[in-house]
Every structure is written in structure tokens, then in C-alpha cells.
């Protein structure tokens, strides 16, 4: 187990260096550097442009900038954001809990609803429920997130008043410190009446929007995987032995059917962490997705590079956890390595 873990972690090192290099070069290929994008219609004199570039080290050859950056990273220094002058690491971890909270809520929703829906659809294959569910999952998968978010805001928030439009908390009612950055936890820690429910209400719509695509994928994946497993001999044997349908489906079949589903959950968690930009924008959710987009538009090299490296590290970590979960579901997988 430890050997497996060490091997996996060591394998990520070259991936990381390649990734850092790619990000480093790609952002510099985009026209306009951090100094130029700051210049408005005022223009800038060539002397001042050269001075500001020099101060940021942008007048150095790219290979030297890259080596300097690697050296800096090697010392655990992700640098300071060019637009805010705050530490990149500090900014990332201020915003990341919001993204993680949203991604976790979206994924929880997708798993809690998607797996049972997929199982029931497989068991009742060909029924109206199955067909309706699969139709809905196609719709969910293909629905543009922006449209879906705005639709929910218009109906649920504006028309029915069941949820707030956006944000993480009602700032008029509540004003407390957020030591963990996870609003659900902080609301409980604050001890303020109604804060937890308010935080939950704010989380509701973004989580539904973010969880919709994973929900559709998980439901479909569970269904097809279950159908395959349900036709296996050992399931027939279990049935022949007189086990209850619940035990056959819920214990014997589902456990084996879950392996591909867990893979998908792992992959999608990575996507959710990195790709919640649209949801964060629509719902004014202060996460890292929007922060990264702003960093691109401002050519904030340190923020962008640091953010991508940190998110990649988390995605790799999630996939590592997924590999370990395989082992728990089916110990033969881990032992076979």
C-alpha cells in the first residue's frame, strides 16, 4: 500500500514540471503582458514601460524566468499577485474553501441522487421510469449551465422567493468571522441564530446547478454498469439462493457496479474543482474559478501559475484517493498492483 502510494506520488513530479512549464509558456504566448494590460487609453511612455517590465523581471529571457520561478517554488514561495500584491498562496486558500464547499455539495447531490436513480432505472429497465430518467439525464447533461442557473434564479429566487439570488450569506442579517472559509461550518461556529440555514439556502441553487451534469453522468453510468452486473452469473446464483431482491441488488450487484462509477466521480470531482467558473460567476460565489479567470485577463502570471499548480495538485490528490477507494470496494485491485 505505502509502496503504491509512494510510486504514485513520485510519478506526479514529472507531470508537475511539465504542467508548470506549459502554463508558464502558454500565458506568455498570449499577447499583452501584465504591464500592457494595466495601461488604459492613457498610453505609456516606452521608458516607463521598460522600467515596469524590469521591476517585474519580464525583461529577462523566458528560460531564466522559468528557472527563477522553479527555484522560488522549490522554496515553497508561490509569489505575490501582480494585481493585489497579496501572497498567491494566501489568496488561493482564502477562496478555495468556497469552491470546495460548492463542489462537495454539488457532488454530494449528484451521488446521493444519481446512484439510486441509476440503480432503479437498471432494475426497472425499459419502464417509463427508466426511459423518463434517461431522457432527463440527457437533458441535464446537455443543458447549458448559464441558462440553467439563470432559469433557477428567475423561478426559485425571484418568483417563488425560496432561495436567495446569489452570494454565500445574507450580509445584512449576519456579520461574523469566517475562520475556516467553509460557510456551513463557520455559520455553526458563529452561534448566530439562523446562520446555518441561511448558508444552506445560499448553497442550494449553485449546488443544484453545479451538480446537474455529474448527476446525469452518474445516473447513466450507474444504470449501464448495473445492467451489466445484473446479467452476471453470480447475481443469478444469488437470486437462485433465494436472497431478497434488495440484498441482491444493493449488496452484491451494486458493489461491483460501483467501480466505474467511482472512476467517474473522481474525474468529475477534479472537473468540478477546476471548472466551477460559470456557476461561481452566475451566483457570485467567491471561489477560485473566477479568481483564475480574472488572473488571465489581468495577465497576473504568479496568481495564474500558482492557482493552476495548486488545483492540479488537488485533482491529482483526488484521483489518488479514487485509486484507494477502488481497493476498498474491490481489494483484489490494490493487491494486483
Amino acid at each position: 500500500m505505502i509502496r503504491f502510494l509512494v510510486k504514485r506520488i513520485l510519478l506526479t513530479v514529472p507531470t508537475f514540471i511539465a504542467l508548470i512549464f506549459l502554463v508558464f509558456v502558454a500565458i506568455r504566448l498570449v499577447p499583452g503582458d501584465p504591464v500592457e494590460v494595466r495601461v488604459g487609453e492613457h498610453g505609456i511612455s516606452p521608458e516607463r514601460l521598460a522600467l515596469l517590465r524590469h521591476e517585474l523581471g519580464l525583461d529577462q529571457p523566458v528560460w531564466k524566468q522559468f528557472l527563477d520561478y522553479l527555484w522560488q517554488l522549490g522554496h515553497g514561495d508561490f509569489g505575490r499577485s501582480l494585481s493585489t500584491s497579496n501572497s498567491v498562496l494566501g489568496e488561493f486558500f482564502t477562496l478555495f474553501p468556497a469552491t470546495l464547499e460548492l463542489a462537495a455539495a454539488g457532488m454530494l447531490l449528484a451521488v446521493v441522487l444519481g446512484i439510486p436513480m441509476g440503480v432503479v432505472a437498471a432494475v426497472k429497465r425499459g419502464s417509463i421510469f427508466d426511459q423518463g430518467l434517461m431522457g432527463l439525464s440527457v437533458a441535464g447533461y446537455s443543458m447549458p449551465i448559464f441558462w440553467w442557473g439563470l432559469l433557477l434564479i428567475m423561478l426559485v429566487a425571484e418568483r417563488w422567493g425560496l432561495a436567495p439570488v446569489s452570494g454565500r450569506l445574507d450580509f445584512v442579517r449576519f456579520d461574523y468571522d469566517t475562520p475556516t472559509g467553509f460557510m456551513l461550518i463557520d455559520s455553526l461556529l458563529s452561534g448566530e441564530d439562523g446562520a446555518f440555514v441561511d448558508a444552506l439556502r445560499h448553497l442550494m441553487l449553485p449546488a443544484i446547478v453545479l451538480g446537474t451534469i455529474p448527476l446525469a453522468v452518474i445516473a447513466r453510468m450507474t444504470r449501464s454498469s448495473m445492467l451489466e452486473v445484473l446479467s452476471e452469473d453470480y447475481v443469478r446464483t444469488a437470486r437462485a439462493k433465494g436472497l431478497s431482491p434488495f440484498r441482491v441488488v444493493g449488496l452484491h450487484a451494486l458493489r461491483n457496479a460501483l467501480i466505474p462509477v467511482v472512476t467517474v466521480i473522481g474525474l468529475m470531482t477534479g472537473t468540478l474543482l477546476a471548472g466551477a467558473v460559470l456557476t461561481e460567476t452566475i451566483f457570485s460565489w467567491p471561489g477560485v474559478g473566477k479568481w483564475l479567470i480574472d488572473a488571465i485577463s489581468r495577465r497576473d502570471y504568479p496568481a495564474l501559475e500558482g492557482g493552476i499548480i495548486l488545483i492540479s495538485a488537488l485533482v491529482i490528490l483526488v484521483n489518488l484517493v479514487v485509486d484507494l477507494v477502488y481497493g476498498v470496494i474491490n481489494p483484489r485491485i490494490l493487491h494486483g498492483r
Partner: protein
Amino acid sequence: MTMHRALGWGLAALLLCSTAASAKTLVYCSEGSPENFTPALNTTGTSFDGARPVFDRLIEFKPGTIEIRPGLAESWDISPDGKTVTFHLRKGVKFGATKGFKPTRDFNADDVIFSFKRQSDPANPYNKIGGGKYDYYNDMDLPKLVTSIDRKDDYTVVFNLSEPNVTLLADMAMDFAAIQSAEFADAMMKAGTPQQFDQVPVGTGPFIFQSYQKDAVIRFKANPNYWGGKPPVDELVYAITPDATARYSKLKTNECQIASYPRPADLAEMQKDPELQVLSQPGLNIGYLSFNAQKPPFDKKEVRQALSMAIDRGAILKDVYLGAGQQAKNLIPPTMWAYNDAVVDYPYDPAKAKEMLAAAGVKSLDMDLWYMPVQRPYNPDAKRIAEMMQSDLAKVGVTAKLVTYEWGEYRKRLQAGEATAALFGWTGDNGDPDNFFFFLGCTDGKPAGQNAAKWCDPKFNQDLAKARQLSSQAERKKLYDEMQVIEHDQEPVLNIAHSVVFLPMRKNVTGYAMSPLGTHEFDHVDIK
């Protein structure tokens, strides 16, 4: 959650909201996070708006106007040679206390000296903190203009200038000239956390900073000791909401009472909503098409005039600005005191344009027409405008090829004089006419970088320099009138439009005065 429970929570929230409203909390849905809270370091309106409630300047703009009035300087004197400006500071002005810092003294000359020395003096310990770029201080040419800033006594500060320049007064009302606490700066430096100085604003303004969560919220409370009187609301909350549609939704649900930058497509619906009011004001900006006066045949004024007459600006205003624009005949908008209304605009007259082109010896013309890749306050859709112009020009036998670059690259190439004709524009910084006319200015006979038309007219430049040295507004107006006539005759740029700026808010919001400079200010705003 059942429907009943949800409705229950909804009702409870509503009740609490109404309680909060009686405590006078004004929620402003802003469009983004400030980069930091030191205006001198910033360039964006979003960052300036984030810090403005906390700070005052030596000179202020009267609410809703571009007229200047005393701020932290009660009065000022200009020496007869125009090279010394003495500011007499207001006494008894308190800085707001914040978490971890309680001011021990009132505002005085040290704060003024610190706020400007940080930007001008490389030896100042804060000069390099926060990136130390000070774009506005440089853009307004203050390093050249201000030779020294001296402290005469606790309440008198003297600015020594290299040449007389009356625009310094308007510069002093700009955000970069906000006065910060020198005592707080010292405290942060001693604590070894100078960066913190730019993250926690301590000023003398109408509101006191409470807290900030990036991309989520900025909280302020009213300053009970404000020298200008306590603001009518007790708390001011910026709910950071980057999406314009979400801002509109929050306005409808009363989650905020004022929302910035509405989508033009939502305006009609907003105006019909009985719960909302939409304020509007002509923006202090100009969108124009520059002709490169150094490239033939654009070096002939007749060609520039002809092309201007070939373009149907009325159609552009209707189809692209969607009514949120005002056709421009001068470089400056009509809201400015120097506006010359006697100038007669060029009509849309393709037949005349064709004749003039032929008379100028231009039989067929292939030209590049540059358009910006981004939306700007003065130009909502440059590509669409360029397409319409292309079609208009084709009617007079001119073939225009549309060209664009990434925004930074676009400005760089334009500044370098690569464009033949390019869409560009300007948003005023301080309401002084000089702040518009300077971008057609030249230094030593060479066009300045921002002069996209690369046009130099000796008389225009002479008037421009002279107007800076006059303190009489009437005298200055005479010069600016003349400059507008020259600019109109020479037509280095075709003035297209001044955009109209809108601000939606709840009906119960009173006392909001829209600033022509596009800033958002809440010190006189109340909720009824």
C-alpha cells in the same frame, strides 16, 4: 425542505430584511473586488469605488458634478506666477478607527505629505510596497509638474510646480489623491506588516471600513464624526456580484438597493418596474474614429472631412448604442463648461463625401479600419460599428478592411502609429477640459503617445498649453472654444458618441447623485 418550511424561512428572512432596512443598511451590488484599498496604486473604477467611502481628498467634486469644492483643504491660494499652490487644511478632522488601529491624532499636513510622497519619492519607505506603480500619478504628469511638496505648518501644505498648471486642482480631486493616515502607515511599518496598510483603509471619509471578504463583501459603517456630517445610512454593504443579470435579480428581490452597470438589454424592463428607478447621465467620455494624419491620403483634411460625412452616425447611435448614446460633434461632452455648442456638426452626406474625395484626388481608396476587441464605456460594440462604417464607406467607393488585435496589442500598435483609421475613445478622469484635449496634443512638434491621430496643429497646441496656465475659467473657455473649432475644421478624429450611463436602484432610495465621472458615492444616500 418542504414547501411550507421554505416559505416559512422566506417570510422570516423578509421580516428580518425589513428590520434591517429600518436600521438603515444600504446594500450596493458592485461588479467586482477592489485590487486593494489604496487608490494611488489602482487604475480601475471598481477598485476606486471600493475605497472611496473611506477617503477624502484635498479637493472634492460637488456631488453629481465636475465642479470642484473644498475637501480636506478648506481653501487654497495660487501664487501670482502660478507655480506655487498653498493648501490650507481643515482642522479637527478625525480618522476612523479600525480593528487593530486607533488613531491618536487628528488629520494634519503629515498625512498629505505622506500620501503624495509615497507616490513621488523613491526614498519613501512605502514607495515600493504594493507594487509601487502609481499609474495615475504618472499619467497626470505629476512627476514632471510637482517639483516639491512642503509642510509649512500643521495645517498648511505647499505644492511647488515646474510650470503654472491650473489642472492640478482637478487632479487633487481624483481618487489617486486620496489622503491616507501617516500614523497608520507608521504603525504598520513598525509592526513589520506594511502590506496590511493597503488592505485596510484608514481615512477621514464618510464611512469607516469594517471588513472585506474577497469576491464576496465589503462592509462599512457610517462615520459619526465625519466633518461633512454623518451619512443618512448606518451601514453600507458592497455585495460583490460580478454577473449583471444576478445584480438585476438581487435588485428585484431587494437583496440590494443599488446595482452597478446594468445590461443595456435589461434597461427597458427596469424602467417599467414600479419598484425600481433608473437614473441616467451622459457619460464623461467620447468614442471616436481617428484618422492617421501622417499617412496619405489621411494627411489631407478634405479626405478626413469627406470620410466623416460618409459615415452615418445616426444609424450607429440607433443600432449599436441602442439609445444609450448622444451623437458627438466635439471632443468633450456637452456637460462640460468648455463645450462649444456653436460648432456645426458634419452631416451624413455620402454624395458630398464622394465629391470631396474626387476633388482631393482620391479615386479609389483601400484602407484599414481598426476596431477594439473589447467593450468600453464609450463604445459598446466596436466590431459592429466598424462593420457599419465599412458598409457606409463602400458606398463612396472606399474599401475598408477590418483589423483588430488583442486589447493591449491594439493600444500598443495604435500608440506606435500603425493604424490608418482606428476606433478608440476616452473617459474623463477629472472633469477638466484639458483632460480631454491633451490626447490630441503634441510635445515639441511630435504627437504624444495617446494621440492616435498623430495630428499636430501648432495653434491647437499653443492654446492647449496656454489654457493650463490660466486660472480664469472664462479665459480658458475662449481658448477651448477656439480649439474645438480647429479640431472640427481639421477633423483628425470623427467624434462618434458620448455614451449615456445608467444606474438602477430601488424606488425608496433617495439622495443619490450620479457622478459624471462614473464614480459611485453613497454619503448622501438614504432609504425611505
